[in-house]
């Protein structure tokens, strides 16, 4: 079956008359790992939110697994990882409780959790390396660990397609590695991935295709593009100097 997982045709989105996406056409085939790249405000997050139906389209169509999104009901096939865990709430919730919410798409609203659900939750926690934190309140975790919790929640539903919104933004390197590992496992099992990223970091080796969104249009669709400017420097990790105005000569010029 080579039916595309995601098809967007001439998609356009506007917030209050302000166009964010102008004319986007995109197809993601099964087994692909597609990164949506672009500057802040380029509309890359809006693109995946429109694909998931969280933002309405002004024009164009979106199909998921060959079904027009409006009529799509097999949400268990999709695992969504939001940018961060909402504003959170005052009521504590354990990591395992949050991850267990990932089973609802598969289980339905009324059926209580069974052994298969608990197994899937434990498996997902293992995949992101958080098994030992299952009983801890999510709020006691670091930002990177919270992000891994959200990925585990998506993995617990055993989806065919993972959609991730900036999964590595502001995440410590140990979490980035754990995340890349989990993603590699997911892809090896035949999964498809669409992710939004600002920078790829350890994910670069997993990505099979990159789509660059610029001013609401797709500016590039193909292999991961070479970073431009000083971002291209080997070993550049997007760390900006403490004081960019420092004259270069301080260190270079021998006194």
């Amino acid at each position, binding site marked *: 079956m080579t039916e595309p997982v995601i098809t967007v045709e001439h998609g356009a989105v506007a917030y209050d008359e302000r166009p964010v996406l102008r004319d986007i056409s995109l197809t993601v085939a099964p087994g692909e790992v597609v990164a949506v790249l672009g500057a802040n405000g380029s509309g890359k997050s809006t693109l995946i939110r429109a694909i998931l139906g969280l933002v309405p389209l002004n024009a164009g169509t979106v199909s998921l697994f060959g079904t027009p999104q409006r009529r799509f009901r097999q949400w268990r096939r999709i695992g969504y990882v939001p940018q961060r865990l909402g504003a959170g709430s005052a009521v504590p919730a354990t990591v395992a409780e949050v991850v267990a919410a990932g089973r609802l798409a598969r289980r339905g609203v009324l059926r209580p959790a069974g052994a298969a659900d608990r197994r899937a939750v434990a498996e997902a926690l293992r995949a992101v390396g958080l098994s030992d934190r299952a009983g801890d309140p999510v709020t006691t975790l670091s930002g990177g660990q919270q992000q891994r919790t959200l990925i585990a929640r998506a993995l617990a539903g055993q989806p065919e397609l993972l959609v991730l919104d900036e999964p590595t933004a502001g995440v410590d390197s140990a979490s980035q590695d754990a995340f890349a590992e989990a993603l590699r496992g997911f892809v090896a099992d035949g999964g498809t991935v669409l992710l939004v990223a600002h920078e790829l970091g350890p994910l670069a080796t997993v990505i099979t295709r990159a789509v660059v969104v610029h001013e609401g249009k797709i500016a590039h669709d193909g292999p991961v593009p070479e970073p431009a400017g000083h971002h291209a420097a080997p070993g550049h990790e997007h760390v900006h100097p403490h004081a960019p105005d420092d004259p270069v000569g301080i260190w270079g010029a*021998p006194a």
Partner: protein
Amino acid sequence: MSLFQYDFMIRALVGALVIGLTAPALGIYLVQRRMSLIGDGVGHVALTGVGVGLLFNTSPVLMAVLVSAVAAVAIELIRERGRTSGDVALALMFYGGIAGGVMLVGLSGSRSNANLMAYLFGSLTTTSPQDLTVIVVLAVVVLTTMLVLRPALFAISHDEEYARVSGLPVRALNLLLAVTTAVTVTISMRAVGLLLVSALMVVPVATAQLFSRGFVATMVTAMGIGLVASGSGVWLAGTANTALGATIVILAIAIFLLAAVGTAVRRALGRRRAVPSGRPTPVVEPCDVVLEPAPAPSGPPVDLDRPDHATAHR
């Protein structure tokens, strides 16, 4: 225990316990979505229902259930649309509700303010056996709904967008929660009064989350605290001859304060104990920054804060 030789005290106790158990089970979802005050607002509107019931000589409780359910649905639809104008819309609804209630009760010509006071502040001791049956049946329905739908309600309250992408019927669940809130407020009205219902929905949850770690643990603890507060509230109100609803709420808040002080003390003690015993050193994650090797070959470390640091390599 001579207090409970009277039937009305037994009824008061049963009613209070049932509400003490049910209100927090619902309130936890309201607290979770930061709508702790919604019960209070729905209570304001329910008063209009009471007024309508008194005016037309129908059951005030039934009318209150209907009117507040409609209001709760309206509130939910306003919340769903966004927040900027919603805040003012809610204020209009709440003040309109309580003002309408006071006017209608006055128009109904029921002899005094006593009737209004009973609905505002509770009158569990005058509850008839029929009233009690209604309270128990509705409470069982609400409690069952909250427990059976816990995973789904947890999901929509915790992360609504994710719940949407999971294909959950988010709007239906939100409306269900809204209507259930209205029903709980109006059945609790007989016990603790409209103005104090919100407290019984929120305070036990606020207490439980001080020391519990997970959602289910918070829920169970809050229901336990609700039971204890309402049970001991009935006893205390009967003994000290104080208003029942107010006594229950004051006890619930006293438990909250005790728990708050208790957890603060325990945390302070725990911190002091932890220092000398020496916890296992936490694993330090590798520094995420590429520490660029400074080309400066030798010489003493440079203090960048010194204004003359450029001259440090000599």
